[in-house]
């Protein structure tokens, strides 16, 4: 524990990585499927990726599409400590989204496992390492926007946005270490822990909980390989006997209903989920079946993890981490259902990388608090209770989706006059629903367009086409009436 503290507080991530790899050299660092790195192997791969990134000029930004495999961990670490600046993106984004992101963030370079990443744009392969290929993408100068890269930025991650496109958040090395440190302090990860992560590494759920807290404790990270189905998960549970499980709510839902997974298959001391609405009945069912609660915590991409949930109060997201402060802002008449959450941590983003409005600074109040779009309050026992959203962001199984992005896409169909996207429950599952106003349109055309452009998780699973939307006397769409369909 003494060394772990020092690794986090060294002020130098690279040195801490080197020291921890030396200390735990012979122990398993990361496993995916049948493949593993020891800490010694991890160091070698980390060093190799650092050399790989030197193919790029210093301070050059590079979009990185991470897969869930063992080599992704040293790539992440190398990217953060290198002078180049990785933008870690969602592995399911498609070509059109990737190109938009590159242009919007003034980035000409792309790392991915794909052999032929672009059909619509010229590119050249510059190098390859452990399956990851580095490409230069030849975007026309007049289409490549200026970015706002800051000197202290070490890496970037994305947030869903609310105005039709993802925003790229810049983070310092210090913020990354701070997020890992305070999470480590709350979760008490130790050398003997095996952390089984069923989230993609770019996602905050994994990024902030499964990298540094594991690494600096000399613990063992197991990344899920294959499909997220009970039979596959069971194999990993039996092979590695994890003590900590990190997964989105739909995985917990699956495990609850899977007869093939029983209490004896799990030896967990901690089960962590994101603050997607995990049904209370599901939380109870899980606890009854497996004898341990789910630690459903609150975190935002812009500020990192904010709470840790010990499960002492049902329906809450736990108490603030040591590095988090919270305030609440009145929203007037609707305060009875919760006030706006303002939060400040030592792991906050610095700014957006793109230069579009609104600027990141507009989301920070004069006291340095991030102005979230969440509502909530603190319970009598001091736990955070989330009561809803102020904007229209849809949260499905822990993934935040901007409905405006989907609406804008569907509106490009010439016979569509209006679109409204929201969440709907179909067959006891939350799905994206698209209500479309227009003539001569069919669901198949809409689906084909969405499949072509959007990541799979953004594709509407329910489509309703109407000649005219129900509207108020002022012409505003009556969402409540629409959602009855």
């Amino acid at each position, binding site marked *: 524990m003494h060394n772990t503290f020092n690794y986090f507080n060294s002020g130098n991530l690279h040195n801490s990585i080197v020291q921890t790899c030396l200390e735990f050299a012979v122990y398993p660092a990361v496993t995916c*499927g049948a493949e593993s790195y020891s800490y010694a192997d991890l160091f070698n791969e980390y060093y190799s990726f650092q050399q790989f990134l030197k193919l790029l000029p210093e301070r050059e930004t590079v979009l990185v599409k991470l897969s869930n495999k063992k080599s992704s961990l040293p790539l992440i670490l190398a990217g953060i400590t290198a002078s180049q600046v990785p933008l870690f993106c969602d592995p*399911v984004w498609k070509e059109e989204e990737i190109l938009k992101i590159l242009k919007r963030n003034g980035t000409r370079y792309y790392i991915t496992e794909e052999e032929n990443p672009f059909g619509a744009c010229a590119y050249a392969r510059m190098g390859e390492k452990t399956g990851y290929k580095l490409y230069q993408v030849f975007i026309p100068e007049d289409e490549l926007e200026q970015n706002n890269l800051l000197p202290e930025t070490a890496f970037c991650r994305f947030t869903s946005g609310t105005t039709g496109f993802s925003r790229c958040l810049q983070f310092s090395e210090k913020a990354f270490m701070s997020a890992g440190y305070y999470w480590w302090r709350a979760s008490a990860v130790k050398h003997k822990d095996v952390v089984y992560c069923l989230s993609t590494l770019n996602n905050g759920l994994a990024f902030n909980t499964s990298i540094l807290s594991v690494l600096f404790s000399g613990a063992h990270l197991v990344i899920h*390989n*294959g*499909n*997220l*189905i*009970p*039979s*596959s998960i069971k*194999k990993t549970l039996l092979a590695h006997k994890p003590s900590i499980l990190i997964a989105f709510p*739909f995985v917990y839902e*699956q495990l609850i209903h*899977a007869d093939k997974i029983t209490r004896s298959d799990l030896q967990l001391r901690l089960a962590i989920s994101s603050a997607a609405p995990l049904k209370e009945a599901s939380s109870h069912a899980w606890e009854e079946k497996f004898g341990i609660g789910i630690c459903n915590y609150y975190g935002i991409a812009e500020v990192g993890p904010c709470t840790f949930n010990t499960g002492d109060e049902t329906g809450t997201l736990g108490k603030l981490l040591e590095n988090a402060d919270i305030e609440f802002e009145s929203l007037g008449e609707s305060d009875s259902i919760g006030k706006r959450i303002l939060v400040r941590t030592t792991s906050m983003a610095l700014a957006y990388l793109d230069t579009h409005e609104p600027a990141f600074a507009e989301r920070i109040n004069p006291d340095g608090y991030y102005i979230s779009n969440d509502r909530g309050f603190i319970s009598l026992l001091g736990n955070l209770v989330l009561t809803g959203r102020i904007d229209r962001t849809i949260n499905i*199984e822990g993934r935040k989706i901007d409905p405006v992005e989907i609406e804008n896409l569907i509106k490009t169909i010439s016979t569509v006059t209006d679109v409204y996207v929201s969440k709907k429950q*179909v*067959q006891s*599952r939350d*799905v994206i629903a698209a209500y479309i106003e227009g003539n001569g349109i069919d*669901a*198949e055309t809409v*689906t*084909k367009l*969405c*499949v072509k452009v959007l990541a*799979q*998780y953004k*594709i*509407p*699973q*329910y*489509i309703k086409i109407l000649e005219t939307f129900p509207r108020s006397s002022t012409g505003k769409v009556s969402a409540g009436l629409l959602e009855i369909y």
Partner: protein
Amino acid sequence: MRKEEILQQLYGILLRKSPAFSQYTLEQIQGESLNSFGLDSIGLLNFMVAIEDEIGIEWDEDRTTSETLKSLNSIAEHIEHEFESVK
């Protein structure tokens, strides 16, 4: 189990798990990519779990690729092969 029988079962499971497919006949979709009909990743996972539960196979990560799961045809062929290899 024969492929035709498997296909009928798969189609039934798919309609129960993803009602949006009810607008298509088996013949219309069996050879086409499930993704192209907008089936999302969670929908696919639910489909895979239901197949295990109802048909009685277990997906082996070493023998299951994205090509295996591409269409009802490819899934049926895979299942037929799995049953054959158990005999």
